């Protein structure tokens, strides 16, 4: 099967996100709609109900590098969150700590990532984790730069 090129793939993800397909528990879109290369994305995860995250909206930044979707995007929580897979110093998501997406597959999407993170939040191990005050944020980070460093 032919591989879908990065741009087509991201375009379809963008459309998906804008149309709001899904149940609203996760949302994502381009940070800058004019970013033709579609590097920088925003994401939100609505805290799963009946968990410590309930009623909170968690904002994330996502950076889809040139090698996406062959490699996972860089995902960073902007809203502070206490979750084992999230680096508590900068909010970066450590994919290896999220079982369901730890081995990246090409057909994983941004939505997959967000949904799996949300699922991780709702998991029995994490859902009662004490959470930092709402509206607190991790320090900003230049994901583009980070992506270059990782290359």
């Amino acid at each position, binding site marked *: 099967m032919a591989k879908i090129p990065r741009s087509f793939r991201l375009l379809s993800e963008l459309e998906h996100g804008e149309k709001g397909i899904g*149940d*609203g*528990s996760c*949302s994502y879109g381009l940070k800058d709609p004019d970013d033709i290369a579609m590097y920088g994305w925003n994401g939100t995860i*609505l805290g799963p*109900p009946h968990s410590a995250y309930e009623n909170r909206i968690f904002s994330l930044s996502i950076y889809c590098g040139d090698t996406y979707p062959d490699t996972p995007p860089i995902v960073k929580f902007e809203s502070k969150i206490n979750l084992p897979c999230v680096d508590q110093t900068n909010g970066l998501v450590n994919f290896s700590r999220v079982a369901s997406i730890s081995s990246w597959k090409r057909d994983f999407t941004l939505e997959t990532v967000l949904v799996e993170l949300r699922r991780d939040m709702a998991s029995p191990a994490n859902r009662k984790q004490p959470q930092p005050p709402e509206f607190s944020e991790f320090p900003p980070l230049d994901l583009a730069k980070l992506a270059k460093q990782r290359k």
Partner: protein
Amino acid sequence: MAEASSSSDVIKITVKGPSELKLSIEIDPSKTVAELKEVIAEKSDVEKDRQRLIYSGKVLKDEEQISTYKIQNGHTLHMVKGANKTQAAAAGGVTASPAAGGSTSQSQQLPRMGTGLNVAGNPVDNIENIPHGLGGFNPFANMAGLNNLNDPNAMTSMMQNPDFLREMSNMMSRPEVLDQMINSNPQLAQMGPQIRAAMQSPMVQQILRDPEALRSMMAMQAQMGGGNPMGGGGGAFGNPFGGGLGGNPFAALGGGAGARAGTEGSNTAEDPFPNLFAAGQAAQTGAGGTGAGARGGGAGAGAGGNPFGAVNYEALTRAMMGGAGAGVGAGAGAGAGTGAAAGTEGNAMGQANPFAMYQNMFGGMGAGGWGGMGGFGSPPPPADTRPPEEIYATQLGQLNGMGLWDAQKNIRALRATGGNVEAAIELIFSGSLDQ
């Protein structure tokens, strides 16, 4: 697109909110988010201050213009309700009747009525095999007003549905059915002649044949279920059936059928009749041959313990309606005269909300046809206070994995099908949830 996004043109956006709220709103993008929220507040019952709007991974700020976010014609926003006192209270433990929430509730706490989920502490049921109303397997599916058996109203309409009542009385008055009931229960079989005589007594037969009588019995049961377990109220209604009846013949129906529903839940696909009256099914509940004890064993309990005990009206009704607990109720009614299965399982009827009752009553209806009736007299178990998201976490995950994203709808489908993913999918695709 270019025109639509220019700030002077009105754009049409969709706002999706909690509880499947979906609004179509036309608005000038030069307006602020705050103004948009006002429009949403008019169209929904979510006040402006509690709305949080999400678009493309961004939380919209009140003071910004809509155009800032470059929302375009046809795009969708998600509206989320922020925390407020009501929610806090809900999180604090829901003990009130779920009926209060109702389908209009916008809160996260979904109305729990009619889900058949109140099974915590029930030794037999678990999440996977709650008796439930699977549309496809429901012999009454074609009857008007019976489409949603999880709807407490469905019970009412069912009672008023002549078809249903006729069907029931037909079945109950068929000698072969009675025979099968009796034969399928060794204890009943032992008592054979008397039971048969009792069942064939003109009075019972008349009751069974007369939809009105059935209905009034059911109605009475429903009322009693609403918190008045009748105490030792057998006397209040007298004992129209005499001691010989003992309620057991019907308890056999109930026990077998109810147990079937309870233990096998969604899997009761085929011909309901063989299962309905199978005493063996009651045994499956772990109640053992005597049927005493666990839910579903009631039939045996009644038969064994109180073959000819005085049975009050209620006990008979319960038994007839086939409550798993009904049999227990029958036994209790005769023996202790509590008339309520409640005591047997340590449930004060008073605590139980009436809807739990309903859902027990008809929750299983579809599962095995009559089998579902098993719920009728069963004691309302303590409400499962776990949120549906949690109860069905696995199933929801599966549905999500299949691309079914509408959590509300998924939950509804799962609740309606007692957590059976395949049935839930069918339900979702049947479109009947969209109405």
